Each structure stands twice: as C-alpha cells, then as structure tokens.
C-alpha cells in the first residue's frame, strides 16, 4: 500500500513538473516577476548557492536511502541502508535548517500573495506571480512536514515509545517524509522556475 502511494506521489510530482515545463516551452507564457528583494552581494549569493546545492544533495541522499527499500519492495529498511539513511538524515537536518533560514525571508506570505489568491491566480501589478506563490506554499508545506518527520525519528530514539507506539511513529515518519520530499522537490522546482521567469523578463 505504502509503496503504491510513494510511486503515485513521485509520479505526480514528475508529471506536475513535466507539465509545467511543457507549458513554459510550448506557450512561452513568461511572466515578469517582481523583484522580490535585494539579491545581496556576491559572497552572500555564493553562500545561498552553496546552501541550495547542499540542501538538494542531502535531500537526494536521504530520499534515495529512505525510499530505496520501499521501491525495491524489501520487507523493511534495515542494515547498511538504514545506517546510511540515518547518517544522511543528520546532514539533511542541518541542510534543511540552512535552506529554511536562507529562504524564509523570501517566503513570508504577505498581502500581495493573498491578492493573487483573491483574484483566483490572475496576477496583477500588485501581486506576485503564481510560480512565486506556489514556491511559498511548497516551502511552508515542506517546513510543516519536516517537523513531524524529524520529531517522529527523534522520539523513536528516546526510551519513550513502546514497540507498538514506535510502529505508529514509523508510519507517521513515512507519511510526513513522503510529503516532505514531494514538497521539497516542488519548492525547488518553483524556485528555479521563478528564477527563470525573472531572468527571462
């Protein structure tokens, strides 16, 4: 069941991204996005780039190690793969924090975003682009799913939960992690797309 859901979610993410890319290529409906903020100096931009790359790499690593057993239809995540997953999860936690700190100021939901929502996604001069809005939405969704993903894994490490309760924690971890990966990938795509929009303007 979970394997089917994972495959479905991953496929949905791929389809969504592919559809948007196709739309962009076929219809070239490039919308000039508003400059959101000062991009900062070169060093800061480099730092942001490093954080983004590290976040992407860690996300990929933790996703591969976490879902490989599920996709390979193995009975459970264990052995060296689990050890690799836990190791990369530590890196991912750090990278996730860095990404969150770097991106949080650009993803506050402001009045302009609600304008876009109120207009049913039709941008106006006062609102942000749909891509930016979606980036913000996925950012907060990723953040919201990262907290239970981390919390469920951590709780299992303390002598708090019985084996049966740990199974519940594991299920919660698997569901929130799936949501985290999907939202993170979509957030990353939206961030890139917004950048393309900006550069194409």
């Amino acid at each position, binding site marked *: 069941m979970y394997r089917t859901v994972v495959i479905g979610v991953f496929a949905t993410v791929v389809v969504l991204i592919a559809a948007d890319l196709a739309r962009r290529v076929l219809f070239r409906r490039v919308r000039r996005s508003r400059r959101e903020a000062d991009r900062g100096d070169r060093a800061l931009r480099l730092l942001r780039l490093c954080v983004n790359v590290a976040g992407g790499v860690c996300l990929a690593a933790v996703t591969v190690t976490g879902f490989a057993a599920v996709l390979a239809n193995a009975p*459970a995540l*264990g*052995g*060296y793969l689990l*050890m690799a997953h*836990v*190791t990369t*999860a*530590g890196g991912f*936690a*750090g990278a*996730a*924090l860095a990404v*969150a*700190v770097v991106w*949080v100021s650009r*993803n*506050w*939901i*402001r*009045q*302009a*975003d*609600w*304008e876009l929502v*109120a207009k049913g996604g039709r941008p106006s001069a006062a609102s942000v682009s749909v891509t930016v809005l979606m980036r913000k939405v996925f950012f*907060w969704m990723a*953040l*919201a799913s*990262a*907290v239970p993903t*981390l*919390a469920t*894994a*951590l709780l*299992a*490490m*303390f*002598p*708090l*939960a*019985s*084996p*049966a309760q*740990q*199974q519940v924690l594991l299920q919660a971890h698997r569901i929130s992690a799936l949501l985290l990966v999907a939202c993170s990938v979509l957030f990353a795509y939206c961030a890139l797309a917004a950048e393309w929009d900006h550069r194409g303007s």
Partner: protein
Amino acid sequence: MRPALSNLSMLALAAILFGAGSAGAQKPLLGDLPSGSRSRPVHVIPLRDENGDTIEPNDHLPLPYSTEQTCGATCHDVQTIRRGWHFNAALPGVTAGRNGEPWLWIDTATATQIPLSYRAWPGTYRPQDVGIGARAFALRFGARTPAPIEGDAADSSQDRARWNVSGKLEANCLACHDRSPIYDQSEFARQLGMENFRYAATAASGMAVVTGSSSKMPGTFDYLLPASVEDSLQPSIPRVHYAAERFLTGQKVAFDIAHLADSNRCYYCHTEIDVAVSGKERWKAGEDVHMARGMACVQCHSNGLDHAITRNYEGDPAAAGNAFSGSLSCRGCHMGSANGQKPSGPHGLNAPYPKHKGLPALHLEKLSCTFCHAGPMPSGKTGMMKTARAHGLGEHNANLDADALPHIVDPVYAQLNDGKLAPYRAVWPAFWGRMKAGRVEPLNPESVRRLLDDKKLSRQAPANGSWPSADIAWVRRVLQLLSQSASGQAEAVYIAGGKLYRLDASGDVKAEANAQAEPYLWAIGHDVRPASQALGANGCQDCHSKTSPVFFGEVQVDSPLEQLGSWKMNHFQPNVDAAYQLSLANSWKFRIWLKVIGSGVAIVLLLLLLGGAYQGLVGLSARISRGRQDHV
C-alpha cells in the same frame, strides 16, 4: 449338576470380570476423574508390591512397594502417564521438539564427555548407538529421571541377567508428587548406586529403611528367596524395614501427594547454577523472577493426565492445536493474543505487560524473549555452570568442585532452528570414534576404557573431577592403539575441543574442523531476569557496542587437550553480519549528536513555522481589512 453349575458360574464370573475390565479401560480411573473440588485429595492407601499384592509391614521379609502398582492398580492410568514428556524419551514416534539438556556421559580415564539423548536431538547420540545399554544408563542417570527404565537390546548379556537381581526401575510418581518433607531423592540415587532399583522408591519415600546392596548379590540371586545365597552374603541382602508408625488401620499409609508438583521436587533434577555461586556461595545466587514472586514451576510447565508437560517455547509441537498450552509461553502470558489485547494470563496471574520503552519492534521479531531476560548476564567470555542432572547436585557423592566435569559453558548467543537469537548452554563433545561414511560413530567409552586400562594408557582423574592431563602424544598413542586393535575397521578418530583428531599417513596427529566436533547447544529458559536486570536495561549499548558480549563475546573452548582459546560468538550466528554490527556499534557514539542536532533543527523549524503562520495571518488580515483602514 454341580460341575455344570460350577462351570456356568465360572463363565458368568469371567464375563463379568472381562466386561468390567473392558469398561475400566474406557472410563477414567478413580484418581483420574476430576471431582471438581479444588481441595487436595487425601491419599490414605495400601502399599502394593510389584505383583499388586498389598504389603504387610509385619511380614518376615516384606517387599518394597511398587509405585506403578500402588498408584496405578485402581486409581491412576499409569500407562497413559508413561507416555508423558518425562517418561517417553525412549518410546518410538515421540516428537523430540527443540534441543534440550542432554545426558552427559563422563569418563575421565578416556577423556570422554559425550552428550546422549534417546530423543536423538541433533548433536546428541542415542545411548544404544554408543553401546550404552539401559542398565548402564539407569545406573548413571536413573536418579535424575522419574522415567521407567527397563532392559534394552544394548544391554550386555551380563547386564541382562542383573535386571533380575536389581529389579527394573519403575516410573517414580513420588519423585514429583510426594510433598512429604522426608521424601529424599538423594536416597533414591544412593540406592541406585547399590543397584537396588526395585527398592529405591521405597527407601526415598521414608516409609522404610532399606539395607543391603543388590550389587553384591550374584546373578542368580532371587529377591523372593533371599535365603538362597551363601551365608557370607546374607548381611548384604537388600531388606526393607518399614516404619510401623506409618501404617494406619487396614495396612494403609498416608501419602502427602500433591497434584501440582512442588517446585522443590522439580529443583532436584532441574537446578541450574553458575559455578561462581555454587556451593558455599549459593546465598549470593539470584532466583528466577517468577519463583521470587511466589510462582511455582507447574504454573507454566503444566499438563493433564497425559503428562505432556508444556515446554513453553514458541513453536513447541507438543502445544500445537492446544491454545491453552500455547498461551503458556513468555509471549502468551505477557504479550497477550495476537490482536494486541493485553494479557490476562492463565491461572488469572495478570502477567505484567512489558513496556519495552524505546525498543524498536524489530527486536521482538529477531530475538527470543530469553535473549534479554534469561540466563546469566553475559560478559566478554562465557562462564561455566552446573546442572543437577549433569553434576548430580544434591546427591550425596556429588563433586562440588567448580571444575568438576562435565563442563557446560553459557551463555552462548546463537541462532538455531527458528532463526531467532537466543541464549544457549553449550557442551563441547569429547569422545573416541570411527569414521564411517563421512560420519564419526562414537565408540563405547567403557570399551575404550578397558582397552586403555590394558595398555596403561588410561588417564588419572584429578581430584577436582576436571579433565585429566592429556596431550597430543597421548591422543596419537590411543589412536594407534585403536587402529591396531581393529585393523581393517574404519579409521579411529578423537573429537575434542571443536576439532577432530586423526592420524595422517606419516602417523602424526592431524587436527581438523568437523561438524560433529561443534558444541551441542540447548536453549536457556531460566533463570528469568526481570526488566531491571535484562539486557538493554542500561541502554542500547548493552548490545550495540564494540565490546558487546552478545555479538563480539568469546565462547570458551573446553578440551582435555591444550587450551584451545575461544571461538567468536558470531560463529553461532549465521544470519548476523558481524561487520555490520561493528559498524553499528561504532556509529553509536554519533547517535547523541544526531539527537542534539535533530532536536535543535526541529525546534528552530517549528519556530519558523510559527513565524510563517503569524506572517501569513498578518498578510491575510491586511488583505481582508484593505480599504477599511480609512474608516478606523
């Protein structure tokens, strides 16, 4: 008319008796028919000898009473009971179940320590296959089993004749069910040592004093005609002197019989103790948590009339199809039913449900309950222990030295039949044999001993009862002797300390690995330790550390030859990846970092999330109240 009437009467009587007999075979006997009362039935009964005749204590030479006749003549179905677990080892078609404690035949003169079992558990040898007859078995082990032992085909012709002198060893009901404080199983053992098989139960019960010794009687001795032996032997004739004060009106005696055997009776044969705390240090030894809480052995190891005592491990074939028997396992009592209901426990014991806080569920799949909760706490190397059956604990002549053979090592953490890791006891086999079709067939230790005695090659048993001094040169000489003594027969070999020794073409001794040289393992069930003393009570690193005894401990090799060091615990864990366990142990020190970093990140992310929610609400509020501010 008279003869005809007489014949008719006899026929009628025969029909009645035959009919009654048939009906008797169908219906439960008096003592096997539960009345429903929870009170203990009083056993004021006549004693019967082995022919079923009532014993008169004032007879000139009263006979010993027969347990099978006294208990079974009219009250208990002894034939059914004799098929129970304690009695059926030698019966054909009995399911052996998982490995249990073997009978360990020790012969220091030949440096032999061989595990025997009529149940043919893998790694043990049937006594008859080693040329050990029922009589030799009874003399060696009969005191520590209530099972009947009668002659078998492996008995020598001399032994066969001796059965008539000593009598057969009957099923001894009293070994378990006599609650009298004067019942003395060690007296039973003493009587067996004197070959007083038919007198042993009588002597043990305290109903009588038995004097004399069948072992001193000639093979022609008839216990019913004791006067037939020569005068010099008269003082040694076995005689029974009943205690007159034990006999009530009607030549009946009162037995203190318990339907549920007292744990003290079980302990006589089933005591297991670490050598470090045996003897004088007994007061320091712990006790099984169930016993310490006031339970009795029979509350878990239970049975019906069939005496098919539950062994209480998961998958016990004896419990198949019997839900109640199945519920008597650790999980059955403590974990409840498979649907997650909390246990109520059989007998209304309300066994505590284990919390196992912080224990990943995987552990419950890969480990038996006993892994964490039974046997001695493991250290870097296995220790030595003694059992009542192997060492005759409680018998008058038991060697109390810590090094006395047999050498049993524990705990060995191994994976056997069910694939779960569990603690085991182990004994390293040591015996002489011959290679036949790739298998070692053990030689009769007594025969080897006689051969070595002739050539003055027997080893002198040390006072402490441990291995005699032996070396490779001695092994070579014995192997040469065995080869010469039976030229043309299969190659002679010696197994000891996990190795097989054989002579090579040049006449030197060559040691090699052999499956039959591997130690025989049987599961540790007791003593059960409570949660506070279980593995893991001090944290995950009880097992997941570089020095973890359960994965990286050493199993002491035991051999009469040179000290052969130890085997890695992992040798007994075919499905455990030692490299992975080491990696996991090494990674454990980073676990605290993971906890700290992960917790910190989770808290910061939560704060950002709350901040984001606040900002979003502010933005939403601004959007909703836009155009309204001028009116404020």
